[in-house]
C-alpha cells in the first residue's frame, strides 16, 4: 500500500501543494487531475522518490520510501514524459536494457512478443530514431508488459498514441489493476479506464489536494 502523509512540495519559489494526503491499495487506480503547472508531474516524481518532498512523507507498506530506496524501486515502474529509450539502439535492445534494469530476466522471445503485442512487428530491429513518435512511445511502454512491479506510475502515458494503441494500453492497465496492481496516472485524454474502482485526485494552485 502506498500512503501519502501531509506532503508538501516547493519548486523554486512556488509552493505547488501542501497538506496532501491519500493512499492507494491493491487493485486500485488513481487518476490525477489538474491544470498545467498544478504539480502533477512533480507529485508523480515525488511518489517515485526522485524528488525529495519539502515536507511530509511517502510511505510504502508503512515505511518511508527514503529508507527503502532500492527495495521500493523494485516494486515500482515509472513512465515519465521522457521516453527513456536510446535513439541509437533498436527496440529489442532498448527493451532488454530496460528489463535488466528492472531486475526482470527475459528471453529474446518474450522481448519480441512484447513488442509484437504493441504493434511493432517488423520494427523490432530498427534503430528507434527512424520510428515515429507514437512508435517510440510504444517501445517505451513495452516494458509494462514484462515487468512484475506492483505499482505503476504513469505520466501522460497516452500521449502521442493512436486510437488503437490507446485502447491497447487501457487493456494493459485494466489487466494490471485486475491482478491486484496499483496504478497512478495523469492524462489529458478522455479515456475509459477500469469501471468503478477509479479514484480521482484534483490538484490545484493553493488548494489542498483531496481524493
Amino acid at each position: 500500500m502506498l500512503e501519502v502523509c501531509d506532503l508538501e512540495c516547493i519548486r523554486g519559489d512556488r509552493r505547488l501543494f501542501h497538506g496532501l494526503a491519500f493512499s492507494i491499495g491493491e487493485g486500485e487506480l488513481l487518476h490525477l487531475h489538474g491544470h498545467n503547472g498544478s504539480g502533477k508531474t512533480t507529485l508523480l516524481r515525488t511518489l517515485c522518490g526522485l524528488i525529495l518532498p519539502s515536507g511530509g512523507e511517502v510511505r510504502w507498506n508503512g515505511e518511508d520510501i527514503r529508507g527503502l530506496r532500492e527495495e521500493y524501486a523494485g516494486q515500482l515502474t515509472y513512465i515519465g514524459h521522457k521516453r527513456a529509450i536510446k535513439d541509437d539502439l533498436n527496440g529489442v535492445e532498448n527493451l532488454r536494457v530496460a528489463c535488466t534494469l528492472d531486475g526482470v530476466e527475459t528471453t529474446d522471445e518474450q522481448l519480441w512478443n512484447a513488442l509484437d503485442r504493441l504493434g511493432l512487428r517488423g520494427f523490432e530491429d530498427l534503430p528507434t530514431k527512424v520510428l515515429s513518435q507514437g512508435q517510440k512511445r510504444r517501445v517505451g511502454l513495452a516494458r509494462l508488459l514484462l515487468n512484475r512491479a506492483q505499482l505503476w506510475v504513469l505520466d501522460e502515458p497516452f500521449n502521442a498514441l493512436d486510437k488503437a494503441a490507446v485502447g491497447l494500453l487501457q487493456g494493459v492497465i485494466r489487466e494490471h489493476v485486475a491482478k491486484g496492481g496499483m496504478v497512478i496516472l495523469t492524462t489529458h485524454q478522455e479515456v475509459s479506464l477500469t469501471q468503478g474502482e477509479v479514484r480521482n485526485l484534483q490538484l490545484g494552485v493553493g488548494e489542498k489536494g483531496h481524493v
Partner: protein
Amino acid sequence: MFETFRTILKRDLTLAMRRRTDLMTTLFFFVIVVSLFPLGIGPEMNTLRLIAPGVVWVAALLASMLALERLFAADHADGTLEQMLLTPQPLALLVFAKIFAHWLVSGVPLVLMAPLLGLQYDLSSEGLQVLLISLLLGTPTLSLIGAIGAALTLGLRGGGVLVSLLVLPLTIPVLIFGAGSVEATVSGLGGDGHLYMLGALLVMSLVLAPVASAAALRISNE
C-alpha cells in the same frame, strides 16, 4: 548484480560504437593540443624533451574534461538516466559501469596514442613506456573524479565550462604524479614512487567516486 553491470557496459559501448565520430573528436583534440606546443614554443629539441611529459599530461587532462560532457548528458536528456535512478540495483554500480565504459572509449584511445605523440618530442623509450603506464593508471582516475563534476553540473547552463572549473583543481595530484613519473624516469631518478602514488589515487577514487557521483546524480535529477 553483475548482470546489470554488464548490460550497462555493453549498452554504452554499443552506443559509442554507433557514434564513432564522438570518440574521434576527443582523440583529435588531444593530438592537436600536443602538436600545437612545438609551434608555440619553437622546435628546439632539448626544450621539447623537457616539457614533453607535462604537455602530454595536460593535454590528456583537457581532453578528458572535454569528453566528460558526454558521460551523463545524453542519458539525462532522453530520460534513461531517470530510469537508472529507479532501479532495484545499487546506483553506484550502474554509475561505475558507465564510467568504465566511458573510460574505455575516451581514455584508452588517449593512452594508446600518447607514445606516438611522445615520439614527436623525442622521448626516450623508457620515457615512453612510463608515459604509457602513467596514463593507463591516471586516466581512469580522471574519469572517476570527472564523473562527480559531470553529475553535479548535469543540466545546468554552461555546464561544460563549469565542470572544468570544478574538476580541474581536484585532478592536480594526478597531473603532478603522472607527469612527474615520466620526468623522473627521463632524468634517471626512477618513476616508481610516482606510479605507486598514481595507483593509490586510482584505488581511492575507485572506492569513493562512484558513490559520490551517484549521490550527485540523485540531486541533479530532482
